[in-house]
């Protein structure tokens, strides 16, 4: 069974009597252990699609299913808290907290069962994605862009969720760093059985993913 799927999802803006569709009859499923990319031009609706998958917004019609269950029934807030990790283009870390404290924020929010030694887990996560301990104790505004995005990835992983969603995660990063981040995503999918869905406009990232979908005129299609 797909870990997360959309079923006949429509999303539109009402403009008088007219509906301007961003997503139309979208049905797609995503599995664990795979690294997906969603391609599309600016304004094509990629971010809207990701916001629906991450329960930051609700579809006008249709369903988002998590392990076959409508996330409406799970509760959007609950779903975000326990089932999904989100990575944003502009990192969105808490500036006055250290890297390790940022990773520990969702640990205090989630209801998922986590090990007691949360700080150690957070250090390990940061270490795993390439942030050494000395940097983990720095306030995040003292870290580089690439390092901040790694911290954001560690934060998305902190609650031990199965689905990682990323919105243009390398948009603000240099090419070299971009590759390192992509490598992390691949590792998460293939070695840790996560479902990683990355929204991007970069063909290079798309080429490295297991499956790529393209969003055009509200329709999501497989990109071969």
């Amino acid at each position: 069974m797909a870990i997360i799927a959309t079923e006949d999802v429509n999303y539109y803006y009402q403009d008088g009597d007219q509906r301007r569709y961003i997503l139309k009859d979208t049905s797609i499923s995503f599995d664990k252990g795979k690294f997906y990319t969603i391609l599309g031009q600016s304004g094509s609706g990629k971010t809207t699609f990701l916001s629906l998958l991450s329960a930051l917004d609700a579809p006008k019609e249709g369903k988002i299913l998590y392990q076959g269950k409508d996330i409406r029934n799970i509760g959007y807030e609950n779903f975000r808290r326990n089932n999904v990790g989100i990575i944003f283009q502009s990192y969105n870390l808490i500036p006055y907290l250290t890297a390790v404290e940022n990773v520990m924020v969702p640990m205090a929010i989630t209801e998922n069962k986590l090990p007691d030694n949360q700080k150690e887990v957070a250090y390990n996560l940061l270490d795993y994605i390439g942030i050494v301990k000395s940097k983990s104790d720095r306030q995040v505004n003292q870290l580089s862009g690439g390092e901040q995005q790694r911290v954001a990835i560690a934060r998305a992983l902190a609650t031990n969720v199965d689905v990682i969603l990323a919105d243009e995660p390398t948009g603000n990063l240099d090419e070299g760093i971009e590759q390192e981040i992509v490598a992390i995503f691949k590792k998460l999918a293939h070695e840790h059985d996560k479902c990683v869905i990355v929204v991007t406009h970069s063909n290079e990232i798309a080429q490295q993913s297991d499956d790529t979908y393209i969003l055009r005129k509200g329709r999501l299609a497989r990109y071969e």
Partner: protein
Amino acid sequence: MNFWKRALASVSRRKGKSLILFAVVFILGNVIAGAIAIQQSTNNVEKNIKKNLGASATISIDYEAMMNLTEDESESAFKESALTNLAMTKQVGELPYVAYFDYTVPSYFQTEKLKAIEPEEEEEGTVSYGGGMGFTVVGGNTEEIADQKKGKIKLVEGRSFSEQELSSGKQVGIISKTLAEQEKIAIGDKIIFDRVSRTGEEFTDDGSIKETENTKTFVKDIPVEIIGLFDVQQTENKGKDKEKDNQHYFVDYNYQLAEQKNTVYMPNEAVMKIEKEYHRSLEEEYPNFWDFPEEEYQKMKDEEAEETTYYQPFFMLKNPEDAEAFRKEAQALIGKHDKVLISSDQFESVSGPLSGMSKISGLVLYVAVGASLLIVTLVILLFLRDRKHELGVYLSLGEKRVKVIGQIVVEVMIISLVAITLSVFTGNLVADGVSSSLIASQEQTENYEMYSDPDFYEFQQLGTETVSQEDVISAYEVKLSASYIVTFYLVGTATILLSTIVPLIYIMRLNPKKIMM
């Protein structure tokens, strides 16, 4: 990293913003604390002075109202007064607020052979009382003398009146020990008050009184058996505390003290009998002794036939807090031109500088709370707008809004509580400084003279301490009382919590998608 830890980290690591909020709350907190401290201090003065003044009451003629009446109206007002109608006094005495009530029949014996105590003269040539002192006669109705109950006097030798003496009107008396010592009077002695009435004298240029050919003198000996001696209690103690350089006070104080030592307590019945007999004898020997115009004299004679007796009532209330309820109910039972005087009324007359300050501080309190609500709301709101992304992160991570709100409230409260705690002390100092200058400025504009109060005599008869503006001002003290601290914390924290309402509505309306994507 739960919301408590995040709040602590935010407060300690975002120092600049914490400091700005701290400064705002601290400054406004000082104004609020100062206003509360002044209010509390003025209330304490009122409470303490009123407590000291006690809860005793009497009935007096409303002299101010009487001034607007014609002569006939004044006479009928007096006849309808509770002071001449014992039944009215008794009705008032039966009100539930009254612990006990009493009444005395007053009189005054001016004597020549028996010497009264003269007031002590502090500095030669500065005190002149115009004529010698006489004896104030206070009728009693109970075995325990009313002034004993009020604590004005203490029986130090002998005994008080017996039931039989009270009902028969036997001419027995209790005098001051000072008078007894001066006149060498012992318990059991029968002394003679040579009560004198004199008319037709003239004042000479040097201020002394000279007899003329028109002078009429009537003397009647009133024998009184002395059964007890008393010592004056309160006034003496109070006098010692008074500043000696307050000449006006000292003259009045010495006169008042001498008057108390010249008081003779007798049964009411005896006083009434003596008065009646004295006036009858006077009239017999000298018809129209005071040389009234014929018409007026006739009228007075008719009135005397009605045997009007003047009663001075005294009510001890159960609880000082019942004073106003007692006044309201008693006023309905007494004469139209009578008024109820309660010992604590004196405070209203002398509290001018404090009540002015209390009003100002009350106003400042409302304005400061209003300004705090507005300013703190705006400061928090501005800071929250800066933290929109942070709040969006919490919401996108699935944090409950109530916890996001909780973090902001905890942050604001940590900073505010520190500022409020410091303001408790500094606000107190501010209040002290401000109130000193406010009192000084108010004192200059208020010139109340307690001794010129038309009801001063009645207040004295209530047996309570008399208060002056100086007493009130010296009793004023800004201090760190528990009630001040509790009130300030309550007002301060309530103001801060109310200030967070609008910012919290802002958080409630945040949409994480719009912020984050």
